[in-house]
């Protein structure tokens, strides 16, 4: 009973947490090299959209 009530008070209990696999992938070099490239490409695409726009 005490155990349950302590869980209910703990907000961390209700929060999404990464699995061990997700944590591993966060520092797995080959995957991170790929993510590095992907993020940079996405960022460049977004920067392209954000340039000053000529007013009508």
């Amino acid at each position, binding site marked *: 009973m005490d155990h349950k009530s302590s869980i209910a008070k703990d907000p961390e209990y209700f929060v999404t*947490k990464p699995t061990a696999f997700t944590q591993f992938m*966060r*520092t797995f070099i080959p*995957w991170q090299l790929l993510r590095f490239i992907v993020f940079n490409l996405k960022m460049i695409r977004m920067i392209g959209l*954000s340039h000053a726009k000529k007013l009508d």
Partner: protein
Amino acid sequence: MAKVVVLGAGVSGHTASSFLRKWLGKSHSVTVVSPKPVYNWIPSNIWVGVGKISPEKVVFPLQPVYERKNIEFIQARAHTIHPEGDESSSTPFIVAGRTDGSNDSVRVPYDYLVNATGPKLDFGRTPGLGPGHNSVSVCEPGHAVEAAASLKESISKMRAGERQKFVVGTGHGLCTCEGAAWEYVVNLEFELRRSGVRDKAEILFLTNEYEVGDFGMGGMHLKRGGYVIHSKTFTESVFAERGIKWQTRSHVKAVEPGVVHFEDLSGAHGEVPFDFAMLLPPFKGAGFTVFDKSGAEITEKLIAPNGFMKVDANYEQKPFEKWLASDWPTTYQSTAYANVFAAGIAFAPPHGISRPMVSPNGTPIAPAPPRTGMPSASIGKTVARNIVGMIGGEPGPRYGASMSKMGAACVASAGASLWNGSAAAMTVFPIVPDFDTYPDYGRDLGYTFGEIGLSGHWIKQLLHHMFLYKAKLRPGWSLIPE
């Protein structure tokens, strides 16, 4: 010959003056008036604040850079603007007090003025807040050095077996820059782990956000794992994973030695004990006084009550439900004087981005809108482009850079290590949600995304070196995007 004066040499002012110099012919002059002799790459102050890097790595002297590029530099703090000149001359001018050791005042005439003075750190709004009082900050390199020294002291105590309580977050109900506080708390946690004392530390993230992950822009929605999730999920997960507690909807009303006093959105008052507190201050504008030709004060014409400069935004007071993306300024030109612009944090935002909240006691508790980093630089460049056009004969600004039409990338460090560090890499488009164009979430989910991992840290490192290279105006600097 036109004389352009830029007040401030931060991200926005330095970008504006650099592009003005690049695009204007030699017959025109560019003058920068700034109270500090150095440029500071502020995003990396976080690493100084945890003792990871020295302050010299985030600053460099401006004078040699400006000398090389033929930009005049006056180390002074501007305090009055005379947009109509005075009785002796109709040339507009500003008056600044030198900060180079002499106490002289200097009168600087201009044809075009760019106010890029950034924020004034308003520690005084919360009694006991800030360096020299009862908490530390990372807003300036000097502050970050003090924070690192204080952290080192706490780590020594923990090594000796003592437990320590850390509080990191916002030092007032109307603060902005929650992203910087987030970065600091996860970096601090990382350093404690690395120092082998994590088990001796209790860490609390104390914020004015309604939910963590709001970051002053109502948070953002991301597509992850087959769902559209709010940044709250992402942020809480990072905290829970690291054992960081969080407390939202809180206005810090005073900081006494070892105790933070707060009021929350329910109107309740409480206290949080601490051994180490890094709490960011609220911002206000530089606070100029403005005079007309006869010497009568006309500050209200140019400056909003919060000290920021009024520009081409819609400042009509209206409820949250009526806020529009189009309320946000496009050209950053003053509506009172066509030759005056405000860039970066210096412009007065028309309203917040996050929903405004007030406690039953009447205390407003809601993040102010962020304008730092990428939008500041983009605005500075656009203002420079428009001034160059006007000097060349254009009747007015031809380019716009509304925050409701531009995106931003944010890479928030979560641990500085080349092989096991991480950072949250995020982009958002547009910064100010536009519910007319994107009815569901106010943003384009194709361009709004985020993830955490080691590659984020590599990007953060890359940006640190790339933007310092660019700010030093080294060969090819203008090819590096804002």
